[in-house]
């Protein structure tokens, strides 16, 4: 390994990058746009559920009951109506996600100890959101019922009734903010896409422009050439990573609780694998267009769908679950979320870290082996 040749190739590659506005945009601007766009748009939080109400009872008891919904941050009462047609129109048009009808005898039923029915109509087309919304509604009603029962019991017993008291402590993300969960995963997705896309052009471009033929007629070694090409992109990827972490902290308020050093070291391993994956595609295809399409396909889809970023892996069918073991971002996301939110170290993260290293090692060896200093 001759370091002079390596640095000559790195310098050449670097000059080419900075003289090409498109590759510069791809390297710096696109990752920033992606993280801001996804960070804001990809929220899984559900609050302010639009709720339409028809209160047919309209007594103190029913208003009291509705107050529990009004005071909840999860619901937003969009209006009071007096017929089913209006409610249906609101749900059809998507202006309301829920409609609630309180029957005429609500307060009388309550007072006389009969079940007091309240009708809840729910737009179930988005099943996930609907399930969560229903859960919130149930929680509000249960709380209301508990209060009624406790009040009645107080009348008959002198002691204070003591039901089971669930004391929950939510760790790592006490407010259930989905962005705390999404942003670290987003970093993995962005680094994967950008780095494999960046390097996917580098070898193919030289074959297409005819500069590779000149280069392979020199004594430069394969490893020197590939390392020389790798280094400037590594620098760019690392810069993107730092920018993403900073944006995460300052634009999205995602706390960085664990070791920054560990995060950067393990990120470098991931980055190495991702960059080399792009380079391998470039080596094999020798064609810029095919290479960039293949790079997007092989980085974006698996990372987005199979890494546990958007969908929980334990929810997937067994076959698909097995497939996720081949996705390096799967391990990287565990590491990112672990360091970011849980402040854990290698004692916990050694397994995904080791697998990340193995993946990088394999892909680098394959890339060096596949690159030939031959025309055909």
């Amino acid at each position: 390994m001759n370091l002079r040749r390596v640095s000559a190739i790195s310098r050449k590659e670097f000059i080419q990058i900075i003289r090409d506005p498109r590759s510069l945009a791809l390297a710096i601007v696109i990752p920033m746009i992606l993280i801001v766009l996804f960070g804001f748009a990809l929220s899984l939080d559900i609050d302010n559920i639009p709720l339409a109400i028809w209160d047919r009872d309209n007594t103190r008891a029913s208003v009291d009951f509705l107050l529990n919904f009004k005071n909840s941050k999860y619901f937003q009462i969009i209006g009071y109506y007096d017929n089913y047609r209006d409610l249906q129109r609101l749900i059809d048009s998507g202006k309301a996600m829920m409609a609630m009808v309180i029957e005429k005898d609500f307060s009388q039923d309550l007072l006389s100890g009969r079940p007091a029915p309240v009708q809840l109509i729910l737009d179930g087309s988005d099943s996930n959101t609907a399930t969560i919304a229903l859960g919130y509604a149930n929680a509000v009603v249960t709380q209301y019922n508990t209060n009624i029962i406790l009040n009645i019991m107080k009348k008959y017993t002198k002691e204070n009734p003591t039901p089971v008291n669930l004391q929950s402590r939510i760790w790592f993300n006490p407010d259930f903010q989905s962005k705390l969960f999404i942003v670290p995963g987003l970093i993995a997705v962005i680094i994967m896409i950008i780095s494999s896309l960046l390097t996917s052009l580098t070898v193919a471009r030289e074959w297409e422009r005819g500069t590779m033929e000149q280069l392979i007629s020199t004594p430069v070694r394969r490893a020197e050439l590939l390392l020389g090409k790798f280094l400037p992109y590594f620098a760019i990827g690392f810069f993107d990573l730092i920018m993403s972490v900073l944006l995460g902290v300052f634009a999205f308020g995602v706390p960085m609780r664990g070791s920054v050093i560990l995060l950067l070291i393990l990120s470098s391993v991931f980055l190495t694998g991702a960059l080399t994956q792009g380079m391998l595609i470039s080596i094999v295809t020798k064609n810029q267009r095919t290479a960039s399409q293949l790079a997007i396909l092989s980085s974006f889809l698996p990372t987005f769908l199979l890494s546990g970023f958007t969908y929980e892996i334990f929810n997937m069918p067994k076959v698909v679950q097995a497939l996720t073991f081949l996705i390096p971002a799967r391990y990287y996301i565990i590491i990112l979320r672990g360091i970011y939110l849980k402040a854990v170290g290698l004692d916990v993260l050694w397994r995904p870290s080791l697998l990340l290293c193995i993946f990088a090692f394999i892909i680098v060896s394959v890339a060096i082996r596949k690159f030939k200093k031959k025309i055909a």
Partner: protein
Amino acid sequence: MTSIKAVSLTRKFDNITAVDDLSFEVPEGEIFGLVGPDGAGKTTTMRLLTGILEPTSGEGWVYGKHIVKESESLKDNIGYMSQRFGLYEDLTVMENVNFYADIYCVSGNERSDRIEKLLGFSGLTPFKGRLAGKLSGGMKQKLGLACALIHTPKVLFLDEPTNGVDPVSRRDFWKILYNLLKEKVTIFYATSYLDEAERCKRVGLIHKGKMLRCDVPDKIKEEFKAKTLEEAFIKIINEWESHAGK
């Protein structure tokens, strides 16, 4: 000393035989012209001898190094200029030259002397800071030559270097080559221009992958009672085609 030696060199691509059983020798310090029409197999021969393409069968040595078994150490001794401009158009003249100087590990005083000399006699000194892509065709070829010569190679392979180059630049180019011959550099020169072939010490006529004749230009002309190489070559090719037809 023999600088280039080919023994039954053959390269097939699928069903096409691009280079068919080529055998020849080029002594050190000679300029050898590989002449033939487009598609005759000149570029494939070049690629085989420079170690960037493996032959289907046959063997070859360049400056004592085997073209398959020692294809990497062979590259220390050779300079190669591919048919297509192989330098970086988005780098300046100087950046290209420095890049190849680094790749060949040319350093110290030798490096600056060499760069100055090469840029000097190729007339590129005033264009040091210009992007290679912004040079004229002739200038590009001279830059390519300068980069191929940066490490003082023993054998120089030039694949149609003056294609599409104006007559003045062409003359400059040949001046450089004559100077190299004085330094005992072996030059392997592929061309489809027969006036350039006349300037070579010996020429090999290649047609459809086969070497039809290999001799001193004057002898070939004498044999076929032709005034020019062009005339002689047309006779040779016609004769061969009529034999092949039978």
